[in-house]
């Protein structure tokens, strides 16, 4: 069947006519769905149609046609044009309209991503993908399938700060589990790049402990970074997994990270020389895993950790003694380390150059200031929101048929009072 002049006109007319309100748009979407095959077969001839449409007003129609146009394989010269047309559409399209056809929207965004990678210019896709995420999301709590792509572009183009701004949203809804794995893994790497180790740890922890029937390469790599970030941020690593970790992860992850666990052992000796020896032995593994930078940070964190440990035993200590205990070359080096730690808030101390001594102090925070109260309030509000969400989820789950079926079968194991209303044979 050919796309004759009349059907082209009627297509454009339909789009023009049915783009004003949600009722019309739903009608339009059904019509366009029926035209889908037609659009696909005539994809090479559809480009002129786009000039007759306004992407900001006729977003849904424009989207269908654009998606069909871009579905054919293209040459490298055309890649630039494609990227430009998709980026411009993303910028001006109406969010409510494109949300009626999310799979089409995701499709063109993924094509933009692919072309941007082939053009070896990942930065071109950063701003468009950020806009597309914000338009596709029903709320900032939803993780779309475009999130991990955006994170990857941020990493490749070294635009870490903008990636971090998206990571600040709390996620409660996920479309596909695979998206969550990749999002948290890439997100962890962005946090590491910005030296936000606490958040990196949280994200990597999610990857390692997420439900998984079999382990994936993502989980393995995340575990390696998790070990390193844990050493940098906490000064230690707990080899036991939390109870909610999948059995697949618990059984297998350690087998792929032997060299990293050796590093943990050498770190726990507290001696920089031991850690450096270990790094030398496994240098090639760390290198091929692209973790050498992180490993170096692990080593330099040891000096900090060791100096911090001294505060637990001493009230004052000479710079010379610090240098000796922590394996630094001179008192001056020790002084510079302590000064840096004071600046970053890792230690509370004052240096007395006249006597060559350091006096360790208590944390002066009294938790009484307005600023501290604001912080506490923010955290409490966040927990309250989380608590309300959990209550709602609990209620929804207690009506779930498969859950009730399972409870019904095993009700003799539970308290009579809680479950006597559930029939022992519950079938739908």
């Amino acid at each position, binding site marked *: 069947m050919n796309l004759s002049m009349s059907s082209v006109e009627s297509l454009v007319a339909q789009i023009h006519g049915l783009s004003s309100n949600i009722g019309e748009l739903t009608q339009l979407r059904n019509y366009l769905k029926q035209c889908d095959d037609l659009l696909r077969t005539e994809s090479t001839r559809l480009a002129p149609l786009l000039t007759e449409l306004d992407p900001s007003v006729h977003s849904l129609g424009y989207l269908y046609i654009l998606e069909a146009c871009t579905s054919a394989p293209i040459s490298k010269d055309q890649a630039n044009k494609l990227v430009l047309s998709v980026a411009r559409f993303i910028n001006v399209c109406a969010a409510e309209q494109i949300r009626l056809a999310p799979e089409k929207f995701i499709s063109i965004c993924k094509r933009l991503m692919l072309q941007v990678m082939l053009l070896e210019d990942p*930065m071109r896709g950063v*701003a468009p993908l950020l806009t597309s995420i914000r338009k596709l999301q029903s709320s900032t709590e939803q993780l779309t399938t475009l999130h991990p792509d955006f994170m990857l572009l941020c990493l490749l183009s070294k635009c870490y700060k903008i990636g971090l701004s998206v990571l600040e949203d709390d996620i409660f809804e996920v479309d596909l589990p695979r998206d969550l794995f990749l999002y948290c893994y890439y997100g962890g790497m962005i946090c590491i*790049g910005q*030296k936000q180790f606490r958040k990196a740890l949280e994200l990597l922890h999610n990857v390692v402990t997420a439900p998984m029937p079999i382990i994936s390469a993502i989980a393995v790599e995340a575990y390696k970074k998790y070990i390193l970030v844990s050493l940098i941020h906490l000064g230690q690593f707990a080899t036991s997994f939390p109870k909610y970790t999948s059995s697949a992860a618990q059984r297998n992850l350690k087998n792929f990270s032997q060299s990293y666990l050796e590093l943990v052992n050498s770190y726990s000796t507290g001696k920089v020389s031991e850690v450096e020896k270990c790094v030398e032995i496994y240098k090639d593994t760390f290198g091929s895993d692209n973790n050498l930078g992180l490993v170096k940070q692990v080593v330099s964190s040891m000096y900090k950790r060791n100096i911090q440990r001294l505060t637990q035993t001493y009230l004052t200590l000479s710079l010379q003694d610090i240098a000796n205990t922590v394996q630094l070359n001179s008192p001056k080096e020790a002084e*510079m380390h302590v*000064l840096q730690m004071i*600046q970053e808030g890792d230690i509370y101390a*004052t240096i007395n150059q006249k006597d060559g001594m350091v006096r360790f102090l208590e944390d002066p925070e009294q938790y009484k200031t307005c*600023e501290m109260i604001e912080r506490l309030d923010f955290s409490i509000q966040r927990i309250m929101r989380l608590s309300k969400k959990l209550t709602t989820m609990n209620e929804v789950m207690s009506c779930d048929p498969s859950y009730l079926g399972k409870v019904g079968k095993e009700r003799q194991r539970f308290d009579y009072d809680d479950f006597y209303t559930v029939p022992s044979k519950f079938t739908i």
Partner: protein
Amino acid sequence: MDFSALNEALAFKSYDKVAGICDTLMFLAASEGVSYQQDWPYAIHLIGHIYVNDINSARFLWKKIPLAVKESQPEVSAAWKIGQRLWIKDYASVHEAIREFIWSPQCQGIMAAFSEMYTKRMFELLQSAYSTISIQDTALFLGMSEEDATNYVLQHGWTVDPASRMLTVKKQAVVTKQKLDHSKLQRLTEYVFHLEH
């Protein structure tokens, strides 16, 4: 490329906004597929990041700058030198890096402001970290001659022992706000309500 927002910020001395404006403009240029690298004000962009103490972003920006630009625009390398020394925390040499280059008119204002801010920041660090410190080190950290440094700190209440060339630091009393208002009462009510239900 339209740099009016950037020029405005510089004219109004809103130096803390420079980095954000440059980032936004760069994304705009990139998403339009415009080849902007040759004419981009990398020096100002780098200094903008340094001004707000975001050395991470300065580092990543430096990595993105094409080699040709790095080699042909000495101001860009000079700006990065400052960032690099801040990164490795070589406090004293930052002043040197600022002084040894003749900055273009576009960068002069923000550089002067940064230099002043940095000296103040160093002073506050010395004040919180040291109880006694040599005149020599103080001068290095503040980027001043020993005489100027001594006068500067004496004005802030420190004392000097000329015999040992040592300065005794006067700690700044910490002023904290502790006043509460009735909105806090409202919030406490919300917490209790939440806990009761």
